[in-house]
């Protein structure tokens, strides 16, 4: 496998650093990204038990400013922006008119007329165009700032004591889903108490040209906490243990947030938003399918697109699936009819020529360590 970047692939400011650290790099969502360093299981457990650092500079960022920013966002997203205070963060999705999902994202509120969105890497161009389209009638300025912004995620129970060593401002008062503008060793950063792993931790947004030195600084300061760099493969096993949906797999333009178990970010009682009619209708008529958690009861590794059986009938296919390093069993997500998606019911997963018995469980698959 080549470790040289293809000309078509974007590289983060840490590309050379990743190579020096022995990362296996591979194309991901148009970027040349570190998939693993020491090994997926070791990296996964490092985050669950201590602290790890991720380069997630591939994520997209969209800046929205102007008097009608709030009005635009209320139209754009399914969650209710009205409840946000300054420096708070909201998880939400934005939908098409038919209720299918454009993307899931984080909305950061600086003030009523200034927000920034963090969106999935593979969707960032599509999202920017979509936001621009919806924004056309509003008095706002929408900018794609993805190429200016790098992002590091520091995740695990030791994330706060570690970062506090480098940061003058207290971090203990940054609540879950809130952010703060701070200087970390003279670098201007936005630090938010969010993540994608189910552990306590922070995501740091900063300018592209400062990311390499800050990454190195955090690695050095984290030696006493046995920090390790963590690749995207472990990021995926960590997120799946939490049952967090992944765009392109578990949520797509063909799935609605209600079916995906994201009904909690759909506020049908707020003012009109794109997709509201369809979602309201879906809620009123009742869902026909929903995303269920599946845990294998025997050995095997479930993977996306493997068939799910009820006795001999194929009743769905996995949208995500992996070996869970915390549980030592296979876990996955699958859309099933609402009757079949009952917790405790038995199905089986087709792995090659075998049907491996499995049970429907309610995600998360392991307890979360986030600070709520």
């Amino acid at each position, binding site marked *: *496998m080549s470790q040289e970047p293809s000309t078509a692939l974007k590289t983060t400011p840490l590309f050379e650093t990743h190579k020096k650290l022995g990362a*296996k790099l591979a194309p991901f969502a148009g970027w040349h990204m570190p*998939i*693993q360093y020491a*090994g*997926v*299981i*070791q990296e996964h457990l490092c985050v669950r038990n201590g602290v790890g650092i991720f380069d997630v500079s591939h994520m997209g960022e969209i800046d929205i400013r102007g008097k009608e920013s709030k009005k635009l966002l209320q139209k754009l997203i399914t969650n209710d922006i009205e409840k946000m205070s300054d420096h708070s963060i909201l998880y939400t999705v934005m939908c098409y008119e038919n209720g299918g999902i454009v993307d899931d994202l984080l909305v950061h509120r600086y003030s009523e007329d200034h927000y920034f969105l963090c969106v999935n890497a593979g969707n960032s161009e599509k999202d920017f165009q979509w936001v621009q389209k919806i924004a056309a009638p509003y008095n706002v300025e929408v900018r794609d700032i993805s190429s200016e912004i790098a992002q590091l995620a520091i995740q695990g129970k030791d994330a706060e004591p570690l970062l506090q060593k480098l940061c003058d401002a207290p971090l203990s008062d940054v609540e879950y889903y809130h952010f703060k503008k701070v200087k970390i060793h003279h670098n201007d950063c936005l630090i938010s108490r969010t993540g994608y792993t189910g552990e306590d931790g922070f995501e740091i947004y900063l300018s592209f040209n400062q990311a390499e030195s800050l990454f190195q600084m955090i690695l050095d300061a984290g030696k006493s906490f046995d920090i390790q760099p963590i690749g995207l*493969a472990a990021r995926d*096993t960590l997120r799946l243990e939490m049952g967090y949906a992944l765009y392109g797999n578990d949520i797509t333009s063909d799935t609605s947030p209600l079916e995906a178990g994201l009904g909690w970010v759909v506020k049908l009682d707020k003012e009109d938003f794109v997709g509201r009619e369809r979602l309201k209708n879906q809620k009123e008529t009742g869902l026909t399918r929903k995303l269920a958690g599946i845990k294998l009861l025997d*050995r*095997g*590794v479930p*993977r996306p697109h493997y068939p799910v059986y009820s006795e001999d009938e194929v009743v769905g296919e996995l949208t995500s699936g*992996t*070996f869970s*390093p915390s549980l030592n069993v296979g876990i996955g997500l699958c859309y099933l009819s609402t009757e079949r998606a009952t917790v405790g019911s038995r199905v089986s997963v087709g792995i*090659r020529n075998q049907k491996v018995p499995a049970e429907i469980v309610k995600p998360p698959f392991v307890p979360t360590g986030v600070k709520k």
Partner: protein
Amino acid sequence: MEVPKDLRYTIEHEWIRINGNKGVIGITQFAQDQLGDVVFVELPKPDSQVSKESTFGVVESVKTVSDLYAPVSGKVTAANPDLESQPELVNSDSYGKGWMIEIELSDPKEIDSLLSPEQYIEQCEKEQ
């Protein structure tokens, strides 16, 4: 990268250690490194037949699933029982405790078509 001199190799990254009319088969250090953490190995039952270049089992890592190809034809005389509870032996000792099956060769001449250590190193360099 370790490529023992006393083994023969396939382009799919299996090795075979010949001892008389028997051969022990596993995957190479290069292969286990590419796969990452091995979490499951599916092997054939003793007495089953394997034929050269056909799949005889599957190795699953966290990241991916990969078929195992027989370097030569023969009858399976043993499958490594330790891999059921300790599949990680494939990562930690790919040429030793991480062996997969032992076979009784049905056509020892097939060995001549396998890669020498030098040829295998060349093959890995191409893939790197």
